[in-house]
């Protein structure tokens, strides 16, 4: 499309606030981070602005011994792996719970649907940090769940679930479930249910109608939901901090450490970029596989 100069200028002016915001708060910090990841750390945090170094990236995979030789160190890879697994687990579980929930709501009458969606979004009204503390109270030894189970005679000894990856996984599923339900519900809500009737008419039973018609048509919502759960989960910081008790570190905690106590800003910046690369890679594979309707 070609525009005359006047309209082109006007369009640029209209876009200017958005462009400036993105440049200032998105592109610039990213460039700064990229730059920082290529510098040497200063002793008390910060960076030495004139000292170029690839150490931050080397440090991710290798350990530098006293004699300056490099040996492979998988500690950080393990943290990435754990983050990936926990986020993936949370995505799968929220999908398994979220899809039937969204389907159930979408099949209700208009009034009931609005009420149920309100119930789903009520947790957003309180701070996630507070809700996570509540989970600590529930999960800790001697907490509500532990004492109820003992009282009912269903467990011997203590629950010992707080400060484990299991607690982090529970926290993830709890916190991110609405992010799975809402986009799937949106795609199911605007679905043409006459198509399901047509599937029944053509001999599909309920399971086949679900698999061959409802699921493919809800796919955009499912893809969106999975990304909305996976991406915040893999980078999440205070859920593993509080429920994992610092024992099951995730990428977020590691990055926070580098800018905090470890005083290694370049390494923190490098880790952030690794996380970004991982997320982009997952998104790319995932959308390539699922975004298009099957059969194309």
């Amino acid at each position, binding site marked *: 499309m070609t525009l005359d100069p006047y309209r082109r200028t006007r369009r640029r002016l209209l876009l200017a606030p958005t462009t400036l915001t993105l440049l200032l708060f998105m592109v610039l910090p990213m460039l700064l981070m990229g730059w920082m990841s290529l510098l040497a750390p200063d002793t008390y945090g910060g960076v030495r602005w004139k000292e170029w170094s690839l150490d931050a990236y080397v440090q991710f995979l290798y350990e530098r011994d006293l004699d300056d030789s490099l040996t492979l160190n998988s500690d950080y890879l393990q943290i990435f792996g754990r983050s990936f697994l926990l986020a993936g687990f949370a995505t799968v579980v929220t999908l398994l719970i979220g899809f039937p929930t969204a389907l159930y709501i979408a099949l209700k009458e208009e009034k009931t649907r609005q009420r149920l969606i309100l119930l789903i979004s009520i947790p957003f009204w309180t701070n996630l940090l507070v809700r996570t503390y509540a989970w600590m109270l529930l999960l800790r030894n001697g907490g509500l769940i532990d004492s109820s189970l003992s009282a009912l005679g269903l467990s011997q000894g203590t629950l010992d679930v707080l400060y484990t990856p299991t607690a982090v996984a529970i926290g993830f599923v709890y916190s991110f479930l609405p992010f799975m339900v809402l986009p799937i519900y949106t795609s199911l809500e605007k679905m043409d249910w006459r*198509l399901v009737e*047509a599937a029944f*008419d*053509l001999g599909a039973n309920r399971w086949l109608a679900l698999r061959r018609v409802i699921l493919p048509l809800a796919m955009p919502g499912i893809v969106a939901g999975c990304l909305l759960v996976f991406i915040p989960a893999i980078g999440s910081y205070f859920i593993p901090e509080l429920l994992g008790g610092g024992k099951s570190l995730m990428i977020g905690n590691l990055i926070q450490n580098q800018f905090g106590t470890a005083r290694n800003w370049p390494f923190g910046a490098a880790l952030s970029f690794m996380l970004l690369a991982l997320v982009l890679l997952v998104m790319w594979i995932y959308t390539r596989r699922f975004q298009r309707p099957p059969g194309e």
Partner: protein
Amino acid sequence: MTGNRVAIEIDHVCKRFGAGEQAVLALDHIALDIRENEFFTLLGPSGCGKTTLLRMIAGFEDVSAGDIRLYGASLTGKLPFQRPVNTVFQSYALFPHLTVEENIAFGLEMRGFKPADINPIVAEKLELVKLSGFARRRPHQLSGGQQQRVALARALAPSPRVLLLDESLSALDLKLRKEMQVELKRLQRETGITFVFVTHDQEEALTMSDRIAVMSAGKLQQVGSPEDIYDRPANRFVADFIGETSFLQGRVADGQLHFGVAGSLSCQVLDQPHDGAAALAVRPERLQLASSGDGLGGVVAEVVYRGVDTVYLVQLADGQPCRVRHTNDSGASRLARVGDAVRVAALPGAFHRLQEAGHDA
């Protein structure tokens, strides 16, 4: 072509919506038989219950009372996917995520056909609806008429014993609709499948059907061939709903019709010759304007030119209005002008006496 075997038996079917005091009787003891290989049409104004009846046959609505039998076997309690009938939906309901051929293959896959058997059937159905070049397209890339054909091919592919069509042509424009009417009739002849067609368009019903069931307000008004329905409407509703009709009050004496109007009309009432007051229905094309001689006296109140024909609204001398239609084939498109005194003559058998409790004195 119509066999005498009964394909669908609708046995005093009722449909109640709601419960208790507010219950609405959407279908009131409908009883009719649909024969094998027949093009059967359920015709009526919107809200008459025709679509509800069709959805009951398909299995999307429960039967409140009565029974529907397919070749003698009751359909009660059978879910839609357990019934050997397929539907062409009003909105077509094509699967947007599947190609044309995948749409057509869907019913075959669901019924457990092997992939090797599916392809030839899909190709055959595509040819049947003249869409062979469109196998890989998606529904949104097709025009309304093409989507309609895909919906037909999809419903015909599993070789249903009965094909149900729910207002299937109403979304098409007039010209396409006329084409599809011929097309549907051809498909029904070629496949030999029983078609049950739902429409509110009386012309469509007359064009395509072997038999028509006229419905109104949940009640069956008349079942018969298009000729039966048009020439011998069972009651005022049917006469009024199908085609154009003038209703006149007359008297029958000695098998002859008399009107309270100057002028005579030599016309016999053949079907119900008993003496007495008679509610009569007459089609405009069976009346003629005559300038003198035999006929009922009246004055032209309105002239409507419609291209192929001209309709004259004549106020008879006793105040009853009637419509007279002349085709414009002679070139003389205006036989009379508004205000002209004319005589209305009738073709033999033009008047049909209606059985009507309220009007039979």
